[in-house]
């Protein structure tokens, strides 16, 4: 352990602002990328499902004639 207290850890020997800015931006952008990437699959499947429903509706109206 290099730091004696939480305050010292946050202060980072006076460089706290720069260190935490770097780590903050890194984990924020990675988090955003991961969330967007994980959601993508569902979005694609919903789109395909909608398309299938549209096709089925078209088929029904055609067969009703």
């Amino acid at each position, binding site marked *: *352990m*290099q730091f004696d207290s939480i305050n010292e850890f946050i202060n980072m020997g006076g460089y706290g602002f720069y260190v935490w800015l770097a780590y903050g931006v890194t984990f924020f*952008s*990675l988090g955003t*990328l991961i969330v967007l*990437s994980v959601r993508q699959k569902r979005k694609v499947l919903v789109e395909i499902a909608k398309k*299938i429903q549209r096709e089925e509706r078209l088929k029904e109206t055609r067969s009703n004639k």
Partner: protein
Amino acid sequence: MWKWLHSYADPERAYKLSGTLLPWFAMLAISMIGIGTVWGLVFAPTDYQQGDSYRIIFIHVPAASMSMAAYMAMATSSFIGLVWQIKSADWAAAAIAPIGAVVTFIALVTGATWGKPMWGTWWVWDARLTSELVLLFLYLGVISLYASFEDKVLAARAAGILAIVGVINIPIIKYSVDWWSSLHQPSTIKITEESSMPTEMLYPLLINIMGFGVMIGAITLVRFRSEILARNGMRPWVRELAKAEGVK
């Protein structure tokens, strides 16, 4: 062997295989980055010259080196897609591009926040920094080219050619600190000789570099799977999946 390899280019098998691999990659990435980051932030010794500001290295170097590695992976996939017309390779390249862009962005930002306290400036138009910025623009170019064609076979070809031509930038980034006089320091980790870094700093750094690599692999698998589904919307197995999971 080629016949065996080819069966994994089949979209359904590629989708399933990447689904099986994903949890392992994700777990490995989370634990490695977790260990490397905590070790680097809390346990690694303070640098005698740079104080604690040097702790940015534990994300800056992994992001920077992996931004180049990811680019090589993307360009290789594009090359395979172009030459052997394997669509799965094109989709893999399309999956990597946004991840590479984010990692390059991280390398640039963490470099800036390290440059400010150490060099006194956020940014200089120096060879290393400028070529890394060009890398970001290459990624953005590949992403927007791929997005701008309705026909994804054509889109992959256009984006793939840009990706392959852009490989020229990789050695420029790598050797920029040796070829031109630069504010940026030359690399600390050396493969052929002993690294100029104590092991208590080197180990967390190496763990994080590998962790970033595995993380890029994991996110690539996630995006690759979505890309497979999006490109195969007419296949029966995708339609079954959409009926099961895509209905709200």
